[in-house]
């Protein structure tokens, strides 16, 4: 049984169509596995080899991977929510209520989006604490820490812009308060608030601007920085193996 399955897998791997996609072949030897990762447009961001130690749960608690997982959930559920949501006043509130009570599985997708958003903010902080307390931000990984800080800011801005979209009382006053905090910036504060809201008060323009930021501009920035973040892990010598492991290798 196991043999026939192996044979079948091998047949597929040597198949002409398979080999046209994966030129170097896949599986069965370390060279082929390495080439498979190296020649794949998505996987080439990652290291072709990793120490066993860094794949253990205790090394990272998988917090970065979990953060990326919540991001993927948010992208998928977010695109689905966009199919029923109009960023206009007062339709936005009604669409949000429709998603909760009228659309099939709407309440599930909306809640999944909401809880994943909360989880992502929590996981980003947890990931940063883990990296900080392990000392994984130190040379040669200091630039990747900076990219991580940018990703923290993008995450918080995504969270903030998404908060306005239900157009309920909580959203309205949270963004009123938040935009007034922004206007406390010296000299340019009031102008910044005007550009952010597209007006002098939280209104239809502000809803539309936050919608475009939330659904297009910030996710694109996030994807670009996530790609660089992952690629830098490989370029900086893989996931930080920890103090003891690096001592062992240096001896």
């Amino acid at each position: 049984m196991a043999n026939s399955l192996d044979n079948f897998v091998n047949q597929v791997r040597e198949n002409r169509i398979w080999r046209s996609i994966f030129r170097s072949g896949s599986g069965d030897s370390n060279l082929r596995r390495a080439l498979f990762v190296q020649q794949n447009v998505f996987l080439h961001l990652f290291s072709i080899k990793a120490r066993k130690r860094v794949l253990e749960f205790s090394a990272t608690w998988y917090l970065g991977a979990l953060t990326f997982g919540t991001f993927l959930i948010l992208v998928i559920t977010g695109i689905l929510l966009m199919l029923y949501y109009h960023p206009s006043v007062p339709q936005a509130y009604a669409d949000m209520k429709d998603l909760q009570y009228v659309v099939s599985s709407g309440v599930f997708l909306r809640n999944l989006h909401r809880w994943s958003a909360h989880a992502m903010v929590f996981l980003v902080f947890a990931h940063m604490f883990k990296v900080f307390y392990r000392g994984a931000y130190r040379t040669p990984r200091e630039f990747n820490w900076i990219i991580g800080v940018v990703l923290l800011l993008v995450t918080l801005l995504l969270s903030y812009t998404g908060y306005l979209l239900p157009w309920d009382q909580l959203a309205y006053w949270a963004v009123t308060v938040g935009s007034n905090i922004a206007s406390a910036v010296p000299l340019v504060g009031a102008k910044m608030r005007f550009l952010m809201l597209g007006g002098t008060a939280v209104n239809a323009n502000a809803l539309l601007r936050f919608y475009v930021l939330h659904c297009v501009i910030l996710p694109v920035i996030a994807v670009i920085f996530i790609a660089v973040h992952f690629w830098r892990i490989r370029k900086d010598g893989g996931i930080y193996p920890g103090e003891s492991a690096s001592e062992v290798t240096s001896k």
Partner: protein
Amino acid sequence: MAEDPKRAPAPDSPEEMSRRKFFVKVGVGSAAVAALGTAAFAYQYLSPNVLYEPSPIVDAGKPDRYPPDSVTMDPQTAIYVVRTGEGFFALSAICTHLGCLTAYKPDLGIIACPCHGSKFNKDGVKIEGPAPRPLPWLRMWLSDDGNLLVDRSNAIAIKQLVRV
């Protein structure tokens, strides 16, 4: 032009600019000008020229709507119309801290903000809380047909009552 020493440097002098350097400078300079233009263009595009927002001038109705010694709030326009024994004045209902809508508490005779706990008296003077400034008095006047009008965009420094 020939007598200008800067225009005609001696060949091979250190100040002489090579053709390559000249074109690099022209190229970088034009890219900088284009970047400035793009920034100005983006700034102007992002600033709306026409706002479809409610008018700052509010018609508060006939003065006799308001009982003597009363504070009446209109949540839609975010103003208080205060009637004292001597006359009327209008107070902004927007907290000077972070822009929340305040509320009048008739049992305590104060104006309180639900967001961060600022408190004001009926004249808008701050009693406590994080608010940095008192609630502004807004310009109020009587229209020709006897209605109270309030200009929300016009805070008045000198407190004046409208006497009817």
